[in-house]
């Protein structure tokens, strides 16, 4: 619940950003650089005199958008491949699974980083890199669900009634995947935002002056010793957002996974 409230607030702030802060968050204001937090600028100003609260709020638009688009890309590539791989099996499955094995041989962040090294920086490339790096995980997850659903009686019944493969996949197999995929995607949204912010922090993500939390943190690192607020608040924003997604994801998992409820009633001996 707390997670949903935080997410709602973040989303509302991101949407309402232009109303809340009519001032351009990328426009330098040299007459007020590196001001500590005050009533006028609750989070202070950065090295170019831009209001940090405005930039954090605008940054939320960029970071949330990157997260959503990246997860959408992972879903759009990983789910169909996982469905087909699990349903048809055979050579296609074998090839896909070896490929997934290969991609999973790279630590996730390293894969995203390497893709950005190849594609170059910028919002689109960050989305592609983060999204593709997470796709193999979805292939695995969906395939596992399909493998167990494929042998169920209702699938056999549908086949016996002459339903086409496409119809079986869509009407009878895919619904089984919804719960695990929704849980995975909620948690993955947090991970995607973290990965994108990590790339931004290294200077390999969204290009300045666009406010993005990771990039802002990277800029803040330079001024860490003199102006603590520059690095602190964008990082706090990332932390709260990821925390909210994790809370909601864990909550969904507990609600959807009946295995977890067993322990709620039983007492363990001391």
């Amino acid at each position, binding site marked *: 619940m707390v997670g949903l409230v935080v997410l709602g607030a973040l989303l509302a702030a991101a949407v309402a950003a232009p109303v809340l802060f009519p001032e351009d968050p990328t426009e330098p204001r040299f007459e007020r650089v590196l001001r500590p937090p005050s009533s006028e600028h609750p989070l202070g100003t950065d090295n170019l005199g831009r209001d940090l609260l405005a930039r954090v709020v605008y940054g939320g638009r960029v970071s949330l958008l990157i997260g959503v688009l990246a997860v959408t890309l992972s879903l759009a590539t990983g789910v169909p491949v996982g469905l087909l791989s699990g349903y048809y099996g055979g050579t296609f499955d074998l090839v896909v699974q070896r490929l997934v094995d290969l991609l999973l041989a790279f630590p996730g962040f*390293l894969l995203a980083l390497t893709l950005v090294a190849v594609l170059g920086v910028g919002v689109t490339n960050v989305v592609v890199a983060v999204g593709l790096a997470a796709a193999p995980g979805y292939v695995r997850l969906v395939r596992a669900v399909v493998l167990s659903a494929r042998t169920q009686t209702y699938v056999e019944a549908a086949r016996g009634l002459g339903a086409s493969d496409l119809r079986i996949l869509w009407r009878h197999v895919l619904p089984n995947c919804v719960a695990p995929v929704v849980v995975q995607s909620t948690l993955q949204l947090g991970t995607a935002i973290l990965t994108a912010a990590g790339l931004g922090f290294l200077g390999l993500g969204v290009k300045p002056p666009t406010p993005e939390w990771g990039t802002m*943190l990277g800029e803040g690192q330079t001024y860490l010793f003199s102006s603590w607020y520059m690095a602190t608040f964008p990082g706090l924003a*990332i932390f709260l957002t990821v925390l909210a997604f994790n809370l909601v994801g864990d909550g969904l998992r507990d609600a959807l996974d009946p295995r977890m409820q067993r322990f709620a009633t039983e007492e363990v001996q001391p």
Partner: protein
Amino acid sequence: MGLYVLRRLVLAVPTLLGVTVVVFALIRVIPGDPARLVLGLQASEAEVQRLRSELGLDRPLPAQYARFVARLIRGDLGRSIATGEPVAREIASRFGPTVQLAVASTVLATLAGISVGVLSATRVYSWVDYVAMGVALFGVSLPVFWLGLMLILLFAVQLRWLPAGGYGTLAHLVLPTVTLAAFSVAIVARMTRSSMLEVLHQDYVRTAWAKGLTARAVVLRHALRNALIPVITVIGLQFGALLGGAILTETVFAWPGMGRLLVGAIVARDYPVVQGVVLVFAGLFTLVNLAVDLLYAYVDPRIHYG
């Protein structure tokens, strides 16, 4: 068991070969001519051509790949565009610090994670459990680079207890290790807790209680040993996350490891170095996963492999 080890070792070879294909392909996708990149815009077309044939870039891709692998086996990763040094030598000097950081963090994650997990599981739904799992949830949500910067602000700038960055003494190792391990401590703690809860409900644990064994004996000898099996897998997987996190942690703490080498090389478009470091990272991860699989077979007596 011996046969199983052998089979797993043989199976790792295609994975490692596949990794070289992926890295080779990725680097070749990059737009632009590496020879032109080395020589700069002023160089004449003839000079560029000469370097192209010297580097083998004028040959077909399969031939280039064969040459790449042949050299790789001899430990030759090419030369850095930026420094002209052999890539293998540059990586060798950065390998130690990264492994040191990764191993220290793995040890911390294992010890702290398992302790917290056991503590939580044996006091499930008590305040200890709630606090521990709350902190663990924070741990998996913290951006590693931000945690690093905040620790620097607290322990280096405010309290002046520890250095803000650099490499060499044990004091330099503390903050990077804590930063890098935080995420894994949380994951291991959560996994240990749920695995322990699962095991604590088994009949043989009930029997152990009924025999009148002490809580210590039941929890540590009967429950924990069995609960550890899935935890080992998670620790192995965490090693990959640690390698990824090391790239960020090294940047925060000016730690002279492979992660910083990689980031610098990406910024400078020094592709031979990028290629070399990515290969070493992926190879390391593959080998650790292999080691975990083997350990798994050793720890779990129920598993018999032909």
